[in-house]
């Protein structure tokens, strides 16, 4: 992948992010922040790459593993906590109907 095409990817990704969040009701600010936060743990892929390419270099394996741990803490925790928050809203609306 050439650098220029990666820059394109960056640009289009940013534009997509700007477009996606249009009108958000204040109710959802906290869950949205927490959900987006979980997605930012996508660095777990970088950590995985590091571990796979470490080729027996133990310090690098450890760094990769710790990094993977931090990222998954963010991802798993983030999605669970968002789900807990959102579960309350959906329970309310379904009760009424």
């Amino acid at each position, binding site marked *: *992948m050439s*650098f220029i095409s*990666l820059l394109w*990817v*960056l640009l289009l*990704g*940013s534009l*997509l*992010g*700007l477009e*996606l*969040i*249009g*009108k*958000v*009701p*204040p*109710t959802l600010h*906290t*869950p949205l922040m*927490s*959900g*987006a*936060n979980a*997605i*930012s*743990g*996508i*660095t777990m*892929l*970088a950590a*995985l*790459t*590091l571990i*796979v*390419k*470490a*080729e*027996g270099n133990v310090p690098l*394996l450890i*760094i990769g593993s710790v990094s*993977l*741990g*931090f*990222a998954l*803490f963010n*991802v*798993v*925790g*983030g*999605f*669970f*906590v*968002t*789900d*807990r928050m959102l579960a309350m*809203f*959906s329970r*309310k609306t379904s009760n*009424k109907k």
Partner: protein
Amino acid sequence: MNLPVIIKFVIDLLAVLLLALGIKGLSKVKSARDANRLAAFAMSLSVVGLLSYYLGTSGIAIQSWIWIIIGSIIGSLFGAILAKKVPMTSMPETVALFNGCGGMSSLLVALGVAIFPISGGQENFDFFKSLINEVSISVSIFVGAITFTGSIVAMAKLQGWLSTPGWTQSKVRHFVNIVFAVASFIAFFDLINGNTSSIWLLVIVSSLLGIGVTLPIGGADMPVVISLLNSYSGIAAAAAGFVVDSQLLIVAGAMVGAAGLILTQVMCKGMNRSLVSVLFGGSLSAQSTASSGSGEYTNITSCSVEECALTLEAANKVIIVPGYGLAVAQAQHTLREVTKKLEQNGIEVVYAIHPVAGRMPGHMNVLLAEADVPYEQLKEMDVVNPDFPATDVVLVLGANDVVNPQAKNDSSSPLYGMPVLDVQEARTVFVIKRGMSAGYSGIKNDLFDLPNTSMVFGDAKKVLNDLIGELKDLGVGEK
């Protein structure tokens, strides 16, 4: 193109699509929960895609598998436990903690690549490629470190582990932070010039910069800071994407970064604060105590819980204004019992939710939802404001600045221009409050002096419990 490459390409494309749909769906109440699960699915899909690619090409050594499993189990386990155990009132600091760890992960990846260059890098070495690598490693470390330390400080402040030290409110802090910033840039360029030893300097000064910038910010502005740091962690992930050459990381990171910025902007608007004043203005209370110690309260009416109950019983329409104090007292369940009684007596009850009620936009909605308050009874500020003149009783519970009429009437007030709830338009206002202390802004609340306002002093939970007792004695809610 061989098969593993094609498979990975398709999976990555699908993952990006699902992530985008996930973020989109999270901004609507109806679809939010499914959207969150969709995003989680997309993330697991991306892992499958990456692992299958390596299995199909270079293979994955046993040793790597071991470290992958160790890291994943420990990280996921702690994340899941914390997410299940943490009380709803501490949601903002939990998000801050998760976010900080995401930043830490990007930082570690960049450090790892910088200290032990990934094999295969040397054979097709070219200057442009290595320059990009160095820049993206530096950015990843810089943003990752700021995200980590900033988030940890934000969490500690929200938890009450850290107060705002006095010196951070003086002008000295700008000087200190400028020194940190300049030092990071020197380290940054030194690193790009190929001096790898300056990587540690970059780690240290950017960590200090994260602390230095976050520490002076007052508790009321913390949600904005967390949202901004959330955006940073996206940027750090995108930078890490350049480091390991992954388009998926760049797209997802950029999406989160951009979405986080928009959300930060929306939050700032709700609080009538600019991002610049949040970041560099210091704590609001520190600036304003001197300027608007404008007078003492002259006309405070205090009343007993019994009187409050009597007035409530006679009311037709009651609006509840919950605030941060309610969350601290953990009184949302008790409040729900009170309102249930009122509703059983045929009294219309509505909750007025200020955009920044609680500690984070939407936080109060989550807390009330936890206490089984029907979603339909929560009204946003713009919707509920015209209703106050036709309201008999307003109960203000632990809210202060968001009901201060100064924001509308007094152009010299630091609060001036902030959108507020017009509770003073109602016939009677009860303010349940521990004492006469000021709110976050440290500003006198003109509402308390008005003739139709009565103060009920006491802890929110205790007052509400007493109120339930009084209402019982009056026979309210026992039809």
